C-alpha cells in the first residue's frame, strides 16, 4: 500500500480538503495580524503586494494602548466575564443537581423550561430588558451586564452540568447518605468535587459567551469608562467614516487573545462540551 502512488493519493484525499478548510478559517486572522503590524504607508498603498509586510511596526499597538481606553475595556470585559461565569456556574449547579438526582413532581417541566430559556435569543428580550435596567437605574454600570449575562448563561450551564451530573455514579452519594450525611452535605462534600471536569467545560463556554456578548453591552454601556472590548472597538475605534485599520486590527487581535489562550489550554473540554448536546442524542 505504501507506494509513491498511494502517498500522492493520500495527500490529495487528506490534505487538499483539510488545507482548503484551514486557509478559509485562518486567512482573516492572518490578515488581522499582518494589518496590525503594517505602517500606514503600506496599508493605504495599492501598489504594494498586500499579503506580506515590508517594514513591520508596533506603532498601532502603542497607539491603541496609550491613546485609547482599550486596556480599561479589557479589564471591564474580564471582570464581567469572570463574575458572570461564577454566578452562572453556582446558579446552574443549583438547578442541575436536583434535576439530575432527585425525584419530585414537576422535574420534567422545569428541565424543559430551562432548555427552552436557553434557546431564547437575546433580540427577543432586549427592548423590555433595556426598560427594566433603566428603571433599576443600572444604566452605564457593569452590574447591568453582570446581571443580564447570566440570563443566557444559567440555563446553558444548567443544561451542560445536568448532562455531566447524570454520568457520575450514585454509589458514593448513597454510601454517604447511609453514614448519616444530609442531602446538602452529600452534594457539597461528595458529589460536587467529582464534577470538576463538567464545571471546567461549562465555565469555558460561559466565559467565551460573555466575551462574545455584544447586544446588551451595546445598549447598557454607553460611557467609555464602563465599555467592554467589542462595544468599545465598534463605538470608539471606528470614528465617523475614517477608519484606523491598523489600530482596529490590533484591537481585534488583542481582544481575541484571552479567549484563544483559555481555549487552547482546554480545547478537549471545549470540544467535549460542544458535542455533548448532539452526540448523546
Amino acid at each position, binding site marked *: 500500500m505504501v507506494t509513491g502512488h498511494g502517498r500522492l493519493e493520500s495527500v490529495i484525499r487528506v490534505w487538499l480538503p483539510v488545507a482548503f478548510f484551514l486557509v478559509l478559517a485562518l486567512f482573516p486572522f492572518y490578515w488581522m495580524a499582518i494589518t496590525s503590524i503594517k505602517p500606514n504607508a503600506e496599508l493605504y498603498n495599492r501598489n504594494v503586494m498586500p499579503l506580506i509586510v515590508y517594514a513591520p511596526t508596533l506603532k498601532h499597538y502603542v497607539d491603541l494602548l496609550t491613546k485609547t481606553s482599550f486596556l480599561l475595556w479589557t479589564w471591564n470585559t474580564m471582570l464581567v466575564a469572570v463574575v458572570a461565569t461564577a454566578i452562572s456556574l453556582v446558579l446552574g449547579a443549583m438547578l442541575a443537581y436536583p434535576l439530575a438526582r432527585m425525584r419530585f413532581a414537576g422535574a420534567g417541566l422545569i428541565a424543559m423550561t430551562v*432548555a427552552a430559556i436557553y434557546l431564547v435569543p437575546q433580540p427577543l428580550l432586549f427592548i423590555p430588558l433595556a426598560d427594566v435596567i433603566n428603571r433599576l437605574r443600572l444604566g452605564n454600570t457593569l452590574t447591568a451586564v453582570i446581571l443580564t449575562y447570566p440570563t443566557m448563561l444559567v440555563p446553558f450551564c444548567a443544561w451542560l452540568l445536568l448532562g455531566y451530573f447524570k454520568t457520575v455514579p450514585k454509589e458514593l452519594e448513597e454510601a454517604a447518605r447511609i453514614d448519616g450525611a444530609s442531602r446538602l452535605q452529600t452534594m457539597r462534600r461528595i458529589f460536587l468535587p467529582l464534577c470538576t471536569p463538567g464545571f471546567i467545560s461549562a465555565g469555558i463556554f460561559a466565559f467565551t459567551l460573555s466575551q462574545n456578548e455584544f447586544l446588551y453591552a451595546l445598549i447598557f454601556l454607553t460611557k467609555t469608562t464602563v465599555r467592554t472590548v467589542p462595544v468599545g472597538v465598534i463605538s470608539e475605534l471606528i470614528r465617523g467614516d475614517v477608519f484606523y485599520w491598523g489600530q482596529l486590527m490590533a484591537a481585534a487581535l488583542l481582544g481575541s487573545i484571552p479567549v484563544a489562550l483559555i481555549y487552547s489550554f482546554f480545547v478537549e473540554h471545549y470540544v467535549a462540551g460542544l458535542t455533548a448536546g448532539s452526540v448523546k442524542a
Partner: protein
Amino acid sequence: MTVASERLPALARAARRHAPLSVLLDRESVFSWLMMALPLIFLAALVGYPFFYGILLSLQDRPVARVGTFVGLRNFVTNLHDPIFWQVAINTFIYTGVATLLKMVGGLGLALAMNQQFRMKNLVRALLLLPFIVPTVLSTVAWMWMLDPAFSVVNRLLVALGWPKPGPSWLGNPALAMVSIIVINTWRGLPFYGISLLAGLQTVPPELYEAATIDGAGGWQRFRFVTLPLLRPIILIVTLFSVIFTFADFQLVYVLTHGGPQNATNLFATYAFDIAMGAGQLGLGASIALAMLPALALLIVALTIYMGRK
C-alpha cells in the same frame, strides 16, 4: 428518677421541634425546590418578566422615557403596512435559509475531511474551531477591512486573477451585501457544524462499513445508506440550534452593514433595534422583535422536545 422523668418530655419536645425540620429538608421534593428557588426566581425576574413585559410593550405606543398608552394591535397593523418590515422578513428568511444550507453542506465536508487519519489532527481541529470561538464583533471587523471599498484584499486577489478593476463593491451593492453577511455567518458557524458532525462520525461503528462493503456498497452508497442515516439525529439537532441563532442574528449585521444599503441586509433583530433604540419607539420596536416569536417558538419547542427525549 424524678429528674430524669422531668427531663424526658422536654427532650422529646426538643426532638419534635428539631427533627421534623431536618426530616422535612431531607425530603427529595423539599430539598429540590429549596435548592432551585434562587435560580428559578432569578430566571423568572430577568427572563420571564421581560418576556411578558415585552408583549405588553408591543401593545403600547411607548416613546422612550415617557408613559405608554395602550393601543391594542395597532403596532402590528403598522408593521403589516410597512414595506420595510416585509423586506426585513424576506431578508431574514433568505439569510437564515442560505447560510444554514451552506453551513450544513460545508460542515459535512469538513467533518468527512477530518474523519481521516493524518498527523497533527488535534492541532488542525483546534485551529479550525477558531472562527467559532473568537468574539464575532472582532472577526467581523476583520472581514469589514477585507471587504473595504478602497483596499479590499479580496478584490485585489480577484483583480490579480483577472477580474476587471476595481472589483465588486461588496458592502455597497444590495445583493452583494447580502452575499457578504451570508458568507461571514457561514465562515463563523461552519466549525460548529463540522466538529459536531465529526464527533457523530466517530461514533459510527466500523463494522457497519465493513458489512456494507462486503454487501458490495461503494463509497457513495456507504455514505448514503450508512453514514447519513446514523448522522441524522445530530444533523437535526445542530441545524435546529443554528437556525434559531441565525434567524435572530444581530451582531454581524449591525457591525458590517447596519442593515444597509437601503435595508438590503436589515434583519428582524437589527430593524427592531433601529426602531426601539434609534427612533426611540419602544412599543413598535417590541412588536417587530415579537414578529420573530411564531417561527422561533416553533423551532424552540421542536428542539426542546427533541432534547428532552434523550
